[in-house]
């Protein structure tokens, strides 16, 4: 079971400060969301515009990677302190993911 936690009540000033800090962070999250919507729009537009495949594919993959980083570091708070183990787990998974996909698209054929 969870252990006891002592949380001394915040003073009025500490409370106001915490509220403001978290409101600021929320504003940042909304900005992140706007950027993600924008990246999605660019990706769909790039495909509709009908440029050559060799140009569009790297661009939309890059946009997806940026969007995922924003999601992980801001929406999932990986930019906060105390995410060392979380990063280790996720990047280990991502490493195996990369190797698996690379293998399947290069040495598997039917």
């Amino acid at each position: 079971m969870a252990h006891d936690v002592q949380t001394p009540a915040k003073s009025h000033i500490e409370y106001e400060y915490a509220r403001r800090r978290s409101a600021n962070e929320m504003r940042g999250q909304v900005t992140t969301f706007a950027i993600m919507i924008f990246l999605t729009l660019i990706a769909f537009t790039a495909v509709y515009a009908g440029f050559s495949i060799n140009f569009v594919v790297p661009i939309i993959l890059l946009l997806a990677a940026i969007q995922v980083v924003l999601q992980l570091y801001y929406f999932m708070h990986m930019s906060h302190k105390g995410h060392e183990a979380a990063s280790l787990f996720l990047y280990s998974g991502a490493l195996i993911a990369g190797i698996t996909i690379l293998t399947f698209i290069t040495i598997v054929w039917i």
Partner: protein
Amino acid sequence: MDLNTKYTPQSWPDHPESSTLEGKNKFLGFWLFLGGETVLFASLFATYLALKNRGPEGMQFSTQELFELPLVFIMTMLLLTSSLTSVYAMYHMKNYNFKAMQAWLLVTVLLGAAFLGFEIYEFNHYVHLGFTYGQSSFSSAFFTLVGTHGLHVLIGLGWITLLMIRNSKRGLNLYNAPKFYVASLYWHFIDVVWVFIFTVVYLMGVIG
């Protein structure tokens, strides 16, 4: 810890999700699980990429003929918005505002359900065209990849709904705060996977 301990916005800790040992363990275990989920989806993506557009001689189905981008765009917007609404829910959780958190979680669930509705419509449409699960190696790989993601959405919806119902009368405390936090991490991860699905499966499928 006494589960009935009542908090006020002033006494509520800054990081309610990791204020207890149980919360810290949930957090750590859940990120390990997400690492495993990454590998699961990687294997499904790899299989899809290897089998894309492969099937019996003269197969009439290809990514270019099947996929409809407007539908995928709507689904993407629904899931992306639901990701933001769950951020709002966690914002209110940290401010010890239980009602607002529940309200934003409800919006999240509704957006997720709408996404799932579109996905069911899409799959149903393909099956009517004759593009069934067993039609080709391409169709099996496609339905397994996108279907596994859809199953995750369904599980996420059930999970968040159960948390909301079970804690509706209890309010927020340090026992359930980590549960809400971890469920919201799961929901964001579902959106992370969808970003790769709409890019690799649908957008790259339409260009060829």
